[in-house]
């Protein structure tokens, strides 16, 4: 499944349409502590988190995550929303808790 396909799956709201929609989503990764995510998020993952600030996007960029999914009703603050557009990062969102959101993605990975 590509980022674009995940975006069009109807599972999540689309907060920002990023640049590389053809990129495959390889894994799902869940974590809310940025230092831990920074060290452990695998490149190409869909990262599910409740943190929606500017640093979330820095971690996405630095770890080469494929996209970020804000779970539990989390949303991007204004600065972070601008940064997502600037950096072409795909941001999705859902009211579902982290586990359910991640499981839904996991079930669609071949």
């Amino acid at each position: 499944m590509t980022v674009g396909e995940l975006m069009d799956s109807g599972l999540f709201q689309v907060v920002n349409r990023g640049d590389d929609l053809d990129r495959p989503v390889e894994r799902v990764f869940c974590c809310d502590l940025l230092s831990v995510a920074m060290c452990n998020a695998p490149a190409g993952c869909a990262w599910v988190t409740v943190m929606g600030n500017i640093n979330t996007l820095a971690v996405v960029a630095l770890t080469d995550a494929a996209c970020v999914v804000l779970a539990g009703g989390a949303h991007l603050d204004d600065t972070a929303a601008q940064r997502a557009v600037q950096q072409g990062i795909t941001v999705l969102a859902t009211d579902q808790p982290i586990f359910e959101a991640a499981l839904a993605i996991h079930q669609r990975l071949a």
Partner: protein
Amino acid sequence: MSDCLTLRFTVPADDFTRAGEASSSTKATLKQLGLPADIIRRVAIVMYEGEINMVIHANGGEITVEICPDQIVMVLKDTGPGIPDIQQAMQAGWSTASGAARDLGFGAGMGLPNMKKCADSLDIESTVGVGTTVTAVVRL
């Protein structure tokens, strides 16, 4: 004459919106230079954790990155409060981060341990009331 490339960054105090700029910019440079992905990742982690520490603990500072044929040397220098007990600061889970920093997802006390894990060498010099200089080396 040196065949090292030097990058310099100023890390602003208390500005979370700009934290990560030095790391991103360094990462982009290393990518352009065609360095291996795991080296880039390790440098990015060291830079990012160091940058965040400067923002949340030390009123910003200066970062110099020297990219040489055999190694990448990062020097992160601040004139913040200093670290009274470096051994304690290095322990996983130890943190004096403020509630505001924690609300943003920091303060896990994993920054310095992560930096140590990712660097081939990590040296911290700190004097209370004067500042802290962290020197990290990733060998190529």
